[in-house]
């Protein structure tokens, strides 16, 4: 389905995850975050940048453990940044599919 984020039409699935990571722009991230009640800070952007880079490299969105191990943002901080479930929210804001892993 189509949704308007940051003044652009993007395709998302029924869980609200973007289906084409190439349509993503930082303005879209701001809009998706706003929808979840978040205001993005430089720390959020660090996580988002890591998720996008890692997903481009690995072909799948990183799980939380991977983010905390490799991005320099620890588990506690990730939960503070994305209180309503960092597992899904970080990927959604970064315009990536929902991660499959459980850790």
């Amino acid at each position: 389905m189509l949704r308007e984020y940051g003044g652009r039409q993007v395709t998302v699935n029924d869980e609200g995850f973007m289906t084409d990571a190439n349509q993503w722009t930082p303005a879209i991230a701001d809009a998706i975050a706003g929808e979840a009640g978040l205001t993005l800070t430089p720390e959020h952007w660090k996580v988002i940048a890591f998720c996008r880079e890692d997903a481009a490299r690995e072909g799948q969105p990183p799980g939380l453990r991977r983010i905390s191990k490799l991005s320099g943002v620890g588990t506690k901080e990730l939960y503070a940044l994305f209180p309503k479930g960092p597992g899904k929210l970080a990927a959604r804001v970064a315009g990536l599919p929902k991660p499959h892993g459980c850790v």
Partner: protein
Amino acid sequence: MTTTLLEAPARSAAAPARAPIEHLAIICSKGTLDMAYPGLILANAARMSGIDATLFFTFWGLDIVTKKTVDRLHVPTVGNPSMHIPTLVGGLPGMESLATTMMQKQMEKLDIPPVQEMLEILSDSGARLYACRMAMDMFGRKKEDLVPQVEEVISAMDFFEKAAGAQVLFI
């Protein structure tokens, strides 16, 4: 002969949406590696989805959070119907450590951390970990014998208070 298929009721906008799970409370009562992971992984998945998680370690589940045993949990090869090997073979020397090593390797491949690290992640994620007072007394363990991620030693009645509003799962 005609068969009438009952139509599944369509989910209309008027139908009340199913309430999402907000709190998961897991009672971990087994201390083998294959029974430790399910509770820990489920609790972690809950936290990752924004669901509160409370864990209560009781009976052999205490081994999961005891300093001396946390890194030494085993996969049992005798009396474990999921092993699909004859009991006699399972009892041969070395079988248990072989099965344990295999499971640890498999977990590593899936990027699932060792139990100790899993407990750290859970604690950092805001999950609450408690140990059962009665089981502690039964096994003669003290709070200082447990990993620091365990917040408190509490009774079963206390646990039910901590689990208010939760879906309770027994493993």
